């Protein structure tokens, strides 16, 4: 029940916002925040009730829906899904609370955010492939309107590009899902059955095609180089909180999908292609970091670091999938690291994009060269940005390190040379973030920034909560690692 509550509550909240046209901005925002927080609370309850020694999927609900074709309402989580979903819910609360110019349509704005939260959580919580696909596509709708209606620059174009590109990925996904569905007798969309029976093992070309379609679909969403070009433009034109959700939650659907579908359901096929996927991930790591270094636009730079960080996640997944390697501990470490990276990246990049939103609200400008010397005018903003930037470049004591260290250590044991090349990514990331900090906050204050104002309470409050999360995961990640390892152990076959 608790999982159903977690995704239904924001949906009901969105419906209510649509139904009461007289609500003021403050009221709409408060309502949305409460609904999102309730959803988060439900997930926290689910977390507390999760038994690390128990079966893979817990809190399972099942309700027959269309029995003739094997579709049912099925929800349930393993540790990986629960960790990512909880992080997402937290990020949604943060995005809703973060002050933004709603262009006179607060109800609609918050309704779309709540809708997006409901369907995003649906992606992580469902155990039915068809529902997974439906939720997966509905997230595009929510994000399309958020970018198109509340964006800046050329929001309509960016929203359209985002929608069509990722929708093309979804179609491949649909084909693959049908392929998976048909491969099993009796036909079923039940993920648990598919994971248990591994129906495509040993089917050669058929399995290869299904795998290719799945990976292409998820690679567009993740995104992996060279399928990433929808991302920077969508980010630059999206409002800050929508960017935070896009990077923090929507990108995770790609990597989460990789773990849930190809990794869990097609172990044999994934093992065969794991080196290829790992190399693609390495390219994403280095290419994403270098291109980010080459950007002079604040938001584009952060957008490209997402490609780099999601590369670490995919690298971890690919290594964990190398079932032929007998070093199970290393593979488990890689998978755990990949999941921690998802959570860490969600919080860190979420914070960074919210900060971008604050910059936009104050100056309407993302050009790094137009800034400088802000450390004195806005010490809080400087402090939070420094923290998030260091977390993103993998500084120990902060969340990103816990993830990247595990990914590298696990990768080295399976593909040593990929790890040796991959660590260069964190050097380039360090360069690009320190350069960014220098250009924003240090040096002389340009005269046109004389009126630049410090963070407001709502802003630093939200950033404070996210930073606390980043810090806690960095210093004492036991609570997170226990949850994730419960599932990663089962998935790589340790337990």
């Amino acid at each position, binding site marked *: 029940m608790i999982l159903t509550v977690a995704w239904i509550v924001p949906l009901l909240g969105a419906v209510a916002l649509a139904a009461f046209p007289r609500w003021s901005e403050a009221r709409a925002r408060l309502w949305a925040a409460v609904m999102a927080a309730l959803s988060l609370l439900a997930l926290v309850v689910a977390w507390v009730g999760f038994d690390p020694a128990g079966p893979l999927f817990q809190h399972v609900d099942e309700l027959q829906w269309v029995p003739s074709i094997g579709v049912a309402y099925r929800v349930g989580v393993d540790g990986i899904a629960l960790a990512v979903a909880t992080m997402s819910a937290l990020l949604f609360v943060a995005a809703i609370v973060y002050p933004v110019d709603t262009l006179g349509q607060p109800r609609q704005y918050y309704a779309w955010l709540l809708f997006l939260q409901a369907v995003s959580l649906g992606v992580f919580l469902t155990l039915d492939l068809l529902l997974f696909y439906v939720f997966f596509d509905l997230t595009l709708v929510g994000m399309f309107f958020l970018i198109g209606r509340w964006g800046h620059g050329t929001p309509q174009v960016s929203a359209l590009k985002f929608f069509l590109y990722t929708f093309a990925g979804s179609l491949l996904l649909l084909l693959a899902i049908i392929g998976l569905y048909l491969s099993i007798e009796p036909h079923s969309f039940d993920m648990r059955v598919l994971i248990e029976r591994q129906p495509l093992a040993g089917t050669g070309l058929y399995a290869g095609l299904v795998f290719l379609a799945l990976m292409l679909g998820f690679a567009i969403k993740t995104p992996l180089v*060279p399928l990433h070009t929808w991302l920077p433009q969508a980010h630059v034109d999206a409002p800050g909180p929508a960017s935070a959700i896009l990077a923090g939650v929507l990108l995770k659907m790609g990597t989460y999908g990789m773990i849930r579908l190809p990794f869990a359901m097609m172990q044999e096929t994934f093992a065969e292609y794991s080196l290829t996927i790992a190399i693609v991930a390495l390219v994403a790591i280095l290419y994403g970091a270098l291109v980010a270094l080459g950007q002079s636009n604040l938001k584009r730079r952060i957008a490209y670091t997402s490609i780099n960080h999601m590369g670490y996640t995919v690298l971890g997944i690919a290594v964990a999938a190398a079932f032929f390697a007998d070093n199970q501990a290393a593979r488990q470490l890689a998978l755990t690291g990949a999941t921690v990276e998802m959570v860490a990246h969600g919080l860190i990049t979420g914070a960074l994009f919210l900060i971008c939103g604050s910059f936009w609200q104050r100056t309407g400008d993302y050009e790094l060269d137009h800034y400088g010397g802000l450390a004195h005018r806005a010490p809080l903003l400087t402090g939070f940005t420094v923290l998030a930037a260091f977390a993103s470049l993998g500084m120990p004591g902060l969340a990103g390190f816990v993830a990247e260290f595990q990914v590298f250590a696990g990768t080295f044991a399976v593909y040593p040379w990929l790890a040796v090349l991959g660590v260069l990514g964190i050097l380039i990331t360090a360069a690009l973030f320190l350069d960014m900090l220098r250009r924003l906050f*240090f*040096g002389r204050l340009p005269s046109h920034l004389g009126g630049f104002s410090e963070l407001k309470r709502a802003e630093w409050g939200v950033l404070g909560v996210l930073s606390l999360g980043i810090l806690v995961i960095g210093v004492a990640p036991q609570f997170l690692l226990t949850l994730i390892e419960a599932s990663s152990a089962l998935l790589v076959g340790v337990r």
Partner: protein
Amino acid sequence: MLWTLALFPLLGATLLYLGGRHLSRGGLALAAALVLLVTLGLAGLAVTNDWQGGHAWSETLVLTLELSTAGSVFALTIPLIALPIVVYAGYHEVALRTGYRRGSRQGARLIGLLLGFVGAMQLLVLAGDFLTLLIAWELVGACSWALISHKWGQAEVPKEAVQAFLVTRFGDLGLYIAAAAVFAGTGGFGYADLAALDGDLLSMAVAGILLAAAAKSAQLPFSSWLFAAMAGPVPVSALLHSATMVAAGIYLLSRLQPVLSAVDWFAPLVIGLGLATALAGGVVGAFQDHAKKLLAASTSAQYGLMWVAVGAGFPGVALLHFVAHAFLKAGLFLAAGLAERQTGSYDLRDMRQGSRLPGIALATAVPSLALAGVIPLGAAWSKEQIAAAAGHQAAWLAVLVVLAGGLSALYATRFQLLAYGRPLRRDPTMLPQGPRPSRAESGALVFLAGVTLLLSLAWWPGAQTWLAEALPRQLPEGKPWELILSLALVVLGIAVGFILTRRRRRLSAWESWASTWFGLPAVIQGVAMGALLLGRALARFDDRVVDAGLRGTARFGQWLARRHAREGEAFAEGVPGMATRLSEWGGRWARQAQSGQTHHYYAGISLGLVVIFAILLIGALL
């Protein structure tokens, strides 16, 4: 319990960072000194009671703290060195920025970060596994970045800080590799697991550790990041060169030397790198005219000597030289800061504060003589020990070590005479003058000079036997000719130093090239610029080429749609239209046959019959 040793200064750092601006600068310095005294006390307790520490993130990731010989030496030395430095910082830096009685926000940040630096370094020397080590290793680097950027308002300073951070982080990558290699071989991250490795994994781990240590210790080819680090304030340099950051490299090597030396290329590589850095750093120091950069080059050179000791198989000797060097180098930096306050720049050619600040000049002479290797100071003894250690490997190595010692005598003399010698002209009023150093500042310097003097005890045989027992590592036996040659070279170095400083010299092109690490900074900047240009080129490539595929697809779709709208639609419309016209025409033709005249019908029937018979006939014939 061992955690308190690292966490207490970190906690103090946080508190002072946040609340320090409400304290007066004296209060700030006092609070920081108290934190360090407690840390020192804790370190003493930890060493005597053999404390341990552990913190499990998960089954695989376990952070462990343990005290080793090297760790104990460091854990005691670090707070002791930091103590005078924070007091000095409180009076030297905080007052400078504000002019008010209350300390400023910047001052609180500086003191807080200095304490954080100490805490991170304590964590580093207490780490019992590679994960904890890596955490501390990177934290030390981050602290140094924040400290070097202290004066962030000047455009150049943050750039230098970034350079220093990136060069050392490049070394950190080695530790990532080392930790991963240990895990790949054993499934754990402990130092003990390193010993269980063999073959390629051990080689990779050792290579990674060496890379990390070389970058932190500013050995070739990474030496020049210390020049970039000079953008930081004086107390930062004093701490960074003596007990933290740069010291991390030699700590790690002497801690792990027994395992590392199992790889056969370890000893030659370490000795080679160390000697090259010691000699090159000596040359740089001989020509460098920037007070702090001269000292920075000397730091690289002195750590190079310690590397030689580790490579020769005597990590204990490296530890002793580390301690002696830490106190003298911290003192020299503080002295350089005092001279700079008088003249407004670190240019040695304009200093010569000897007659204005005779007391300070005298106090500076102690660490200067120690750096020169003059008997009976402690640093001289540890340097002779290094020469003896090198002599165990080969006599020519000992010769090179004492040659490096001669170079240190040269640049130490230059520093002392240029910074605190007598002015060349009789008219000191020509130069601008700053405020006289406060009692706290000179006190800090005198304290460090005093400890340096105290370390002369190392020459006393009783102390030597105690050291050999306290450090469970053997000390090398020196040969008389080494000592004699060494002393001769020291005297020669001092003499050349005197000659070089007798008048203002203009550096030749070769000398100024040598004085800036033989063009190394340019190489590093070239690499950085190359990466940046590559990034920009890839960014353009991404916009124009990768995204072009997408735009092309979109354009193709639009083109296809337009084609369909015109030709496709026309075709689709045309086919049924054609069919309609065809049937219409057929209908008209059929209607013409219905004329209503009987002979037409008969003619038609007979024609039909003929056709039928013809068909039947063909069928029968075939």
